[in-house]
């Protein structure tokens, strides 16, 4: 069964009087446990597609079914709750909250879950262990290297145990060594924790770590 089923999605942005078609009737099936690298030039619609799958943007038309839910039909609170339970998002620039420690950053999504403080603590610590930063719990983002920050961000994406991880250029701001570590970690999350991963990247080396590579060109999927 497909974990992600994007059907005939069209996304049009309006800039003043001009309409910009970013995705044009795109369809895509990503099976459960898959690890897909989305590639393509800037402006090809990669991030837009990722945002649609993650429910942080809405298609102009078409359906985006993740699991059993057509998230194109969800709005507001329902969509927020769905996102909290089902999606882990990893950003290029990590986007950690600078005034929170690594542990607090990871714990943040759990504030939305009906969970005891003890359970939250256990899960946040476990997530940090998984990414190899158990000893950096009390460090603030400014006290961590880029690679470590990204690993904290991965722990944050992982902590609520979502089925799907979406990564937008997760190695785009890292040196080669740190990038390799992150890519290994993502591979492990896919193979060991059975997370379905969709990764946007410009980097062919990074894309090689995925099971499949998809190419987007002007909002149209080129090959799978």
């Amino acid at each position, binding site marked *: 069964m497909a974990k992600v089923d994007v059907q005939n999605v069209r996304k049009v942005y309006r800039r003043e009087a001009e309409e910009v078609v970013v995705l044009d009737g795109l369809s895509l099936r990503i099976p459960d446990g898959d690890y897909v690298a989305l590639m393509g030039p800037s402006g090809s619609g990669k991030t837009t597609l990722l945002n649609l799958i993650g429910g942080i943007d809405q298609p102009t038309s078409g359906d985006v079914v993740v699991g059993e839910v057509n998230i194109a039909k969800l709005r507001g609170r329902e969509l*927020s709750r769905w996102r909290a339970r089902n999606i882990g998002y990893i950003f290029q620039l990590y986007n950690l*909250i600078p005034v*929170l420690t690594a542990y607090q950053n990871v*714990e943040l999504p759990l504030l939305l879950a009906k969970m005891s403080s003890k359970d939250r603590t256990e899960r946040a610590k476990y997530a940090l262990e998984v990414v190899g930063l158990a000893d950096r719990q009390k460090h603030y983002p400014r006290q961590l290297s880029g690679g470590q920050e990204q690993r904290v961000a991965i722990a944050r994406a992982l902590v609520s145990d979502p089925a799907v991880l979406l990564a937008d250029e997760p190695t785009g701001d890292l040196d080669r060594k740190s990038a390799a570590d992150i890519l290994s970690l993502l591979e492990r999350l896919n193979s060991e924790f059975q997370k379905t991963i969709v990764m946007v990247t410009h980097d062919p080396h990074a894309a090689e770590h995925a099971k499949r590579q998809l190419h987007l060109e002007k909002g149209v999927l080129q090959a799978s």
Partner: protein
Amino acid sequence: MSVFKLILINLGRNKRRTILTMLSVVVALFLFCALRGVLDTLEASIKVGSETRLVTRNKISLIFPLPLSYRDRLAGIPGVKAVSYANWFGGRDPVDPHNFYAQFAVDATTYFPMYARDIEIVAGDPPQVQVAVPAGLDPKLASFLSERDACVVGERLFKRMKWKLGQRVPVSGTIYPGTWTFTIRAVYRAKNPAFGEETMLFHWKYLSEKGMGGQGTVGWYALELSDPSRAGAVAHQVDAIYESSFAPTRTETERAFQAGFVSMYGNVPFLIGVIGIAVVFAILLVAANTMMMAARERTAEIGVMKTLGFEDGMIFKVVLSEAAIITLGGGLIGALFAKWLIESSGFNAGGLLPPMTVSWATVTIGIAIAVLMGATSGLLPAWQASRLSIVDALRRVD
């Protein structure tokens, strides 16, 4: 970590800004409450006056006296239970002219019984010779009653000046020239706080003899009524009696008499009120601007929180709570500090006003304004943050 802790952490991210914003609210609410305290005090000064007593003064102005000869006739008017009289002395401290306190020459045998509900004698020098104290007077006044130049002073003034019983206190006369020396023989305490404890009371007879060459004129009469409901009729009757005399009278309740003093301030209370509101409004704009800046700086973070699943309503609450904590915290500190500082200072304009006060009503209004300030200054940034689209928010950094 809880959501509340998250809010506190957010407030602590720019401690200097948070503290300065809170301080501006503290100052605004302090000023607002202090200014309203002036109005509270003026209002309280009206309440010093009793509705059961009338004050008869010269119709032209309080500065013109009335003959002492009116006393017996006033006492004979039906409904008048007792008559007392007093004069404003207007002396200065010869050592420190800025140390102002009020002095009144009073007819002790009638004055103290009439004001027994407002003041009590808490200390008195024992008399040097055995003196019969008239009925209705505190026995501690024996020494005061037996000496021509004795005085009774308020407890607060007594303590402030570090006086002692038996001490001789010089006062420079302004209306009645010369240096007057009074011996402190008793101390009174105000049972009614609005009466104040910064006044010196001495014998009217002494003033008459030394200051007026024995001429019997008084500043005003105080009439105690047997039936307060007849105050209007008695006042009318008194004024009618002296309407065609050389010194016509104006009679009103003691409360109205005090209110007359307050009315002399004209539009000052209105101006004070307007200044208070203007200060609050100015700070409100500053606070609103700061809250908006604080929220705007975190646009990307808000986008991240929404990506993680934080609902618009939750974002709204977090941002609004930050504003509310700053303004409510500042408001509470400002309002309570104003109440504490002003009331503990005991400032009473040298006894011309009751001790300055900031009423609980004013504190409550101050805190309500702080809540309103929090809501007003936080609503717009909270609304903007909650309405922010995730894609737009993230685009500002990515």
